[in-house]
C-alpha cells in the first residue's frame, strides 16, 4: 500500500516538475519542489500566522517599560529633520509645516524625551481636500515600523453638512427634505495616533529611548500637512466618583429644565457618509409630516470604530445636567452598540468611555448612569460640544481573539484543502497529521485562541451567548480533529462552513450601528420625554399615513424652473438615484425645468402607447438599438457640443449606440472584466500573477494540482471571454459591414476552440458562484466585471488586503507586447424623437453627462448606499474623481485602455443566444467545435439578415 502511494507521489512529483520546467514562467517554487520529498511540501504545510509584528506582542515585549502616565499630558515636541516631503516656512497660518502632496512621500522628525518608555504620538495635521476622503500614513520609530498597526493609520477628516448652521434642510417642490451636501472642513486638528481598525480603543503606544529618537511619517494615501509631531505622556482618566468630587459644587440649573437637540443636525462629523435619513415608523419621531419626507434621524453607516458625530449645545446656567439619547439599535440582534462620549473634546470620566445602547425594535431612551442613578455632567453656561464616537470598547479584546483564531483557521483550512480537495472522500484516510506535520499543533493554537475569545466574550456580555454557539461548535470540532485526525476528511465541509460563519460573525460584531432621533439635556429632576407612541397616537398616525398614500407620489419630482423649457426624464433604477439626481439639479445652474419619474416599465411598450418620456437614463444598449432602428430616437451627433463630449469617452464608447451613421445615446456606465487574485494563496504557492493566457494556464494547472480552481466569467455577449480572445487573436465579432457575425473565420475557429478548450481540456468549472469560492480561497483567481470589487470590499472583510485586481490575461503579439483587449457593457442616455423641447433636452443631457455631475452623482450614491453602490461611469474624467485608491485606479485604467466596445446589430438577441448554444454543444454535449460554431453562426446570420432587410 505504502509502496503504491509512494509511486503515486513520485509520479505526481515528476509531472509537476515537468510542468514547471517546461512552462515559460520559471516559477520560483521549482527549486523547492525538487528538494522536497513529499507531496506535502508541494501543497504547502500549514503556514504559521506571523504574530511577531502585532501590537499585542510589541506591548508584551516592552512590558517592563514604564507607561508614562500623568494627570497632565506632557508634550515633547519634535524637530523636523529631513525627508522628501516639502518643508514650508508658512502654510495655512502655521510656521515650519511639512506638506505631503503625493503618495510615498516621507519626512523624519527628532524627538527628545527625558525618560525611556512608552508614549503616545500626537500629530497636528491639516486635512487637505482629497477625493478618496482618506488620509493614511505609516509611522516608523528609529528606522523601523514597530508593529503592523502602525503601518496604516488613518487620520480622521472633519466634515459638516451645508445645513449645519441653519439647522433645517432645504426642501424640494413637494416639501420633502433634500439630502444636505457634505463639505470637508479644512482646518488644523490634533490627533493621538490610534489603531484605525478600532481593535485597540486607547491611542497606540510607542517605545521611545531616553534621549533623541527619530520618528518618520510616510504618506500612503491622500494628502496632508503636518505642523508638529510630539510624544505625549498618557493622560489619566478619572472615575465618575473622582469626577463628581472634582467639579465645583454649584448648581443653578432651573428645576425641570429640559432641552431637545435634533441629532440629524450635527455640527461636525467624521465621514461624509453619515447622513440624515428619515424614519416614518412612529409619530413621535421628530420632526414628522404625513405628506412629506422629513429627514429626522441620523445614523445610517454610523457603525465603524472611530466614526463620530458632534453637536453644539447651548446651556442656560452652570450646574449639573443629565444626558438622554433617543436611539434605535435594531441590527445587532441581542447585542449592544458602544459609543464613547466626549464633552468639549474630553472624555469626562471612564464610565462613559463605552456606553451600551441595547438592542430593540423601536426607539428607546438611553440615559447614561449606573445603579446609583443617572450620571450628572457639570456644564458651565454657554456653548459646549457633545460628541459620540463609535468604539469597540470592552469587546475589542474578544474581537482580536476571534480575528486571530480566524486567520489561523483559514490557513489550516487551505492547507487541508490542498491535500484533500474541497470535497474530501470521507472513506479515505488522508493521513493528514503526517502529510502536514504542522497541522495538529496549529489546530491546538487555533483552539486556544477560540477558547480565549469565548471567555472574553463571556466576561463582557451575557447577551453575546447566542453568537457563542458558533465558537463552541468550532472548538468541539477542533478537539475531535486533534484527537482523531482521520475524522478531518469527514468533518471538513462542516469545518469550512463553521469558518465561514465565524468570518461573518467577526465582520458583523465589529459593526456598531446606531440611529439617533434626538438627545436631551435636562436637570436632575426633569421628566424624561416619552419615546414610544401609545396605541391611539400610533393608530391616528397610521390612518393619516394610509390616507396620505393616495395623494403623495414619491416616485416623481417636478422641476422648479421655467416650465416652457420643461423636460420629462425617466429613471429606471431606484428612488435613491432619483433623489440624488433631483438634488444635483437643484444645486445646478441648469436653465431647464426637469421632471423626474421613476419608471421601471419597458420603454418600448411605453413608446408604443405614446406615453414615453423626453429623455431616458441608463438605457440598455439593446433597447437603444431597438428604438433607434425603428426611428424613435433623436440622433445626437449633430447637436452643438457633441464633439467635445465625445472626447471625454473612450474611442469606441459610442459604437454600441450607433446605427447607420447616427448616434442615439451618450454612454453613462461602462463595465468590463478584471482579474481578481488572492495574493495570499498565490504567495503561499510561490506563484506570480499571470499576465498572458499561457501564464494563466500554468498557474491554473498548479492551482488545480492543489485542489483549487480558477473562475472565468460566464457572460456571452461582448463582455465575455470569447470576445476577448477573438480580439486578442486579431479577429472581430462582426463583419466589416455589420451584416453578420464573423465567427467562421480561421481566427474565429481558433478563438472558439481556445475558449471551449478551457472547459473541455483544462476542466475549468463551467458553472460557479465565484464570490463564495474566491472568499474561501477555493478559487484564488476569478475573472469578473470590475463591479465585483464593491461586493468584495463590502461583504468579504475577512480577506481585505489579501486580494487585488489586475488586467485580464492577454495574448502576446508578434512585437512582444501583451494585448489585453476585451469588450464592455453598460447603458446610455437617450432622447426620444417625440421630445418637445429638444434643445432643453440636449442641455440636460450635456449637463448630466459632464464629468463633474457624473462624479458627484457617483459620490453621493456611494455615501447614501455605501461602497457596494460604487458607480461605474463611462466618462473617463468622472472616473478619476471617484474614490478609488491610486493603485486600483491605475489597474482599472490600464485595462480600460484596451477595452473595445462592440457594435450592436439588429437581431442582436440571436448572437449571444446562439453563441451559448454552440458553446454548450461543445462543452456539455461534447460536440464538434467547427460544426457547432458554423451551424449556429449560420442561424445567427440568417436572423440578422432578416432584420436588416426590414430595417437596414
Amino acid at each position, binding site marked *: 500500500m505504502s509502496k503504491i502511494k509512494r509511486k503515486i507521489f513520485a509520479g505526481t512529483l515528476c509531472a509537476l516538475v515537468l510542468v514547471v520546467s517546461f512552462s515559460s514562467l520559471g516559477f520560483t517554487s521549482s527549486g523547492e519542489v525538487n528538494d522536497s520529498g513529499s507531496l506535502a511540501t508541494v501543497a504547502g504545510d500549514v503556514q504559521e500566522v506571523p504574530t511577531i509584528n502585532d501590537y499585542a506582542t510589541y506591548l508584551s515585549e516592552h512590558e517592563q517599560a514604564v507607561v508614562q502616565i500623568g494627570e497632565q499630558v506632557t508634550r515633547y515636541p519634535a524637530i523636523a529633520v529631513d525627508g522628501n516631503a516639502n518643508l514650508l516656512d508658512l502654510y495655512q497660518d502655521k510656521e515650519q509645516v511639512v506638506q505631503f502632496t503625493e503618495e510615498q512621500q516621507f519626512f523624519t522628525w527628532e524627538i527628545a524625551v527625558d525618560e525611556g518608555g512608552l508614549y503616545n504620538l500626537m500629530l497636528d495635521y491639516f486635512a487637505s481636500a482629497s477625493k478618496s476622503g482618506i488620509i493614511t500614513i505609516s509611522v516608523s520609530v528609529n528606522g523601523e515600523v514597530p508593529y503592523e498597526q502602525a503601518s496604516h493609520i488613518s487620520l480622521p477628516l472633519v466634515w459638516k453638512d451645508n445645513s449645519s448652521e441653519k439647522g433645517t434642510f432645504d426642501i424640494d417642490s413637494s416639501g420633502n427634505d433634500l439630502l444636505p451636501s457634505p463639505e470637508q472642513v479644512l482646518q488644523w486638528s490634533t490627533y493621538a495616533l490610534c489603531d484605525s481598525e478600532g481593535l485597540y480603543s486607547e491611542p497606540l503606544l510607542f517605545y521611545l529611548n531616553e534621549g533623541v529618537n527619530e520618528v518618520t511619517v510616510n504618506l500612503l494615501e491622500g494628502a496632508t500637512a503636518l505642523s508638529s509631531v510630539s510624544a505625549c505622556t498618557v493622560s489619566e482618566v478619572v472615575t465618575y466618583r473622582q469626577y463628581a468630587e472634582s467639579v465645583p459644587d454649584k448648581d443653578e440649573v432651573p428645576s425641570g429644565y429640559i432641552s431637545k437637540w435634533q441629532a440629524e443636525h450635527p455640527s461636525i462629523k467624521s465621514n461624509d457618509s453619515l447622513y440624515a435619513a428619515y424614519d416614518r415608523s412612529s409619530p413621535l419621531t421628530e420632526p414628522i409630516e404625513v405628506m412629506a419626507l422629513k429627514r429626522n434621524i441620523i445614523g445610517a453607516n454610523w457603525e465603524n470604530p472611530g466614526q463620530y458625530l458632534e453637536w453644539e449645545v447651548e446651556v442656560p446656567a452652570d450646574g449639573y445636567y443629565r444626558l438622554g439619547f433617543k436611539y434605535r439599535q435594531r441590527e445587532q440582534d441581542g447585542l449592544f452598540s458602544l459609543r464613547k462620549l466626549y464633552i468639549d473634546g474630553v472624555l469626562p470620566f471612564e464610565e462613559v468611555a463605552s456606553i451600551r445602547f441595547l438592542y430593540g425594535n423601536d426607539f428607546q431612551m438611553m440615559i447614561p448612569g449606573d445603579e446609583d442613578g443617572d450620571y450628572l455632567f457639570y456644564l458651565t453656561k454657554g456653548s459646549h460640544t457633545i460628541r459620540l464616537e463609535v468604539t469597540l470598547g470592552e469587546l475589542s479584546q474578544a474581537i482580536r481573539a476571534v480575528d486571530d483564531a480566524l486567520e489561523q483557521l483559514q490557513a489550516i483550512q487551505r492547507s487541508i484543502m490542498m491535500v484533500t480537495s474541497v*470535497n474530501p472522500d470521507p472513506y479515505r484516510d488522508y493521513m493528514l497529521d503526517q502529510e502536514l506535520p504542522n497541522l495538529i499543533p496549529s489546530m491546538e493554537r487555533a483552539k486556544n485562541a477560540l477558547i480565549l475569545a469565548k471567555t472574553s466574550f463571556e466576561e463582557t456580555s451575557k447577551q453575546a451567548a447566542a453568537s457563542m454557539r458558533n465558537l463552541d461548535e468550532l472548538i468541539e470540532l477542533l478537539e475531535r480533529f486533534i484527537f482523531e485526525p482521520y475524522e478531518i476528511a469527514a468533518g471538513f465541509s462542516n469545518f469550512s462552513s463553521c469558518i465561514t460563519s465565524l468570518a461573518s460573525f467577526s465582520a458583523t460584531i465589529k459593526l456598531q450601528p446606531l440611529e439617533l432621533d434626538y438627545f436631551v439635556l435636562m436637570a436632575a429632576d426633569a421628566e424624561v420625554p416619552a419615546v414610544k407612541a401609545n396605541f391611539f397616537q400610533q393608530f391616528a398616525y397610521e390612518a393619516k399615513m394610509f390616507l396620505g398614500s393616495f395623494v403623495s407620489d414619491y416616485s416623481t419630482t417636478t422641476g422648479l424652473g421655467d416650465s416652457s423649457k420643461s423636460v420629462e426624464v425617466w429613471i429606471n433604477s431606484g428612488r435613491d438615484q432619483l433623489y440624488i439626481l433631483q438634488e444635483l439639479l437643484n444645486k445646478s445652474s441648469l436653465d431647464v425645468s426637469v421632471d423626474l419619474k421613476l419608471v421601471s416599465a419597458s420603454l*418600448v*411598450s411605453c*413608446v*408604443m402607447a405614446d406615453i414615453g418620456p423626453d429623455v431616458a437614463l441608463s438605457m440598455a444598449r439593446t433597447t437603444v438599438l*431597438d*428604438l433607434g432602428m*425603428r*426611428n*424613435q430616437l433623436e440622433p445626437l451627433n449633430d447637436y452643438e457640443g457633441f464633439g467635445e463630449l465625445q472626447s471625454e469617452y473612450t474611442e469606441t464608447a459610442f459604437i454600441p449606440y450607433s446605427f447607420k451613421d447616427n448616434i442615439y445615446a451618450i454612454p453613462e456606465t461602462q463595465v468590463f472584466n478584471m482579474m481578481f487574485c488572492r495574493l495570499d494563496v498565490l504567495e503561499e504557492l510561490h506563484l506570480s500573477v499571470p499576465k498572458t493566457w499561457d501564464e494563466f494556464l500554468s498557474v491554473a494547472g498548479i492551482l488545480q494540482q492543489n485542489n483549487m480552481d480558477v473562475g472565468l466569467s460566464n457572460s456571452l455577449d461582448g463582455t465575455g471571454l470569447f470576445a476577448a480572445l477573438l480580439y486578442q487573436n486579431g479577429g472581430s465579432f462582426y463583419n466589416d459591414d455589420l451584416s453578420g457575425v464573423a465567427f467562421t473565420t480561421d481566427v474565429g475557429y481558433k478563438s472558439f476552440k481556445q475558449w471551449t478548450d478551457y472547459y473541455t481540456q483544462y476542466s475549468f*468549472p*463551467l*458553472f*460557479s*458562484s465565484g464570490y463564495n469560492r474566491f472568499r474561501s480561497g477555493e478559487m484564488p483567481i476569478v475573472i469578473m466585471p470590475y463591479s465585483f470589487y464593491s461586493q468584495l470590499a463590502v461583504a468579504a472583510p475577512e480577506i481585505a488586503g489579501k486580494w487585488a485586481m489586475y488586467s485580464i490575461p492577454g495574448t502576446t503579439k508578434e512585437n512582444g507586447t501583451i494585448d489585453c483587449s476585451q469588450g464592455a457593457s453598460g447603458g446610455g442616455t437617450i432622447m426620444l424623437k417625440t421630445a418637445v423641447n429638444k434643445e432643453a433636452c440636449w442641455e440636460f443631457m450635456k449637463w448630466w453627462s459632464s464629468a463633474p455631475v457624473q462624479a458627484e452623482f457617483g459620490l453621493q450614491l456611494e455615501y447614501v448606499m455605501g461602497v457596494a453602490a460604487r458607480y461605474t461611469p463611462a466618462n473617463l474624467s468622472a472616473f478619476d474623481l471617484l474614490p478609488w485608491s491610486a493603485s486600483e485606479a491605475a489597474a482599472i485604467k490600464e485595462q480600460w485602455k484596451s477595452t473595445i466596445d462592440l457594435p450592436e446589430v439588429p*437581431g442582436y*438577441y440571436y448572437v449571444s*443566444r446562439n453563441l*451559448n*448554444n454552440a458553446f*454548450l*454543444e461543445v462543452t*456539455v*454535449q461534447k460536440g464538434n467545435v467547427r460544426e457547432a460554431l458554423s451551424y449556429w453562426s449560420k442561424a445567427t446570420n440568417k436572423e440578422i439578415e432578416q*432584420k436588416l432587410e*426590414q430595417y437596414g
Partner: protein
Amino acid sequence: MDDYLCGIGDGVMITRADLKVNKRRSLWQEIVANKMSYFLLTPFVLCFILFTVLPVVVAIILSFTNFDMLGTLEFVGIKNYVRIILDDEVFMISLRNTLILALMTGPFGYVVSFGLAWLINELSPVLRTVATIAFYAPVLSGQAYTIWSYIFSSDRYGLVNGILISLGIQDTPTAWLADPKYIIPVVIIVSFWMSLGTAFLAFIAGLQGLDKSLSEAAAVDGIRNRFQELWYITLPQMLPQLLFGAVMQVISAFSVGDVSATLAGNPSPSYAGHTFLLHISDFVGARYELGYACALATILFLMMYFSNKFVSKILNSVGR
C-alpha cells in the same frame, strides 16, 4: 328535450319552429322581459368582451400583419402562417416540446390527480385537510418551482448533484439545466408537480358533494366492487368537476412556459426546453414581431379549443 327550449321568464313552452318564425321579435321581447337579468349580467359581459373577446379578435386580425409594435403595420396575408410552418425550425421544436409536456402533464396528471383525490377522500377530515393543502401548495405559492432550480442546480453544490456525488454515482456535476438531454425530463417532473393542484381541488370538492344515497342504492342493486361504483355512480355525478378539471388541465398543459424559462432560461440551450408559449414571448419580448407572435398565438388558441372539444367528447362517455 331537444325539441323544446325553455323561455326564461314567460313560463310558456315554445317549439323550435315557433322560434324560427318570430326569431328577431322574440329575442328582443325576451331581452325586454328579462331586462333585470341582462342588467345584472352587463358588468361581466362588458369585461369579458373588453378583456377576453376583443384581444382574441385583435390578435387574430394582427396575425395577418407585420406589426412590430413601433413602426409599420401592413397586411401581409397568410405570410406569417406560411413562415411558421415552412421556415421556422424553432417552432417545430417548441411544438414538439409542448405536445410532449401536454401529454405528460395533461392526461397523465389528470388521472393521477383524480386518483389522489379519490384516495385522500377516504382519509379522516383532519388528514384530508393536511393532504389537500400539501398537494395544493405548489399552485398557491405560484412561483414555488424556483426551488427546483436549486435542486437541479448545475453546480456541484446543487442538491441532486450533491447527493449523486456523495453517493459516488457521479464524480463531476451534471449540468441538469444546460444539457439538452435533461432539460425536458426535468421540466416534465416540475410541471407535473405543479399541475396536480387545480384539478385535484375540483375533484376533492366533487367527491365531497356526492349523494351517498346513490351509492347505497347501488350497493343494494348489486354493484360488485369499488371500481364499478366509481365508473357507474361516482364519476357520472362528478361530470361538472371533471369537465372543469379537464379544461384547466388542457389549458395549463399547453401553456407550460414559466417553469422551463425559470429553470433552463429563455431561450434554453439549443431550444431544448422551448415551448409554444416561450416561442411567442420570444417574438414579443426580444424581437418585437407582434404580427408573427399573434399568428402563433392564434394557432395555440385553436389547438386549445379543439383539445377541449375532444376532451369533453371523451368525458361525455363516462359511465356509459
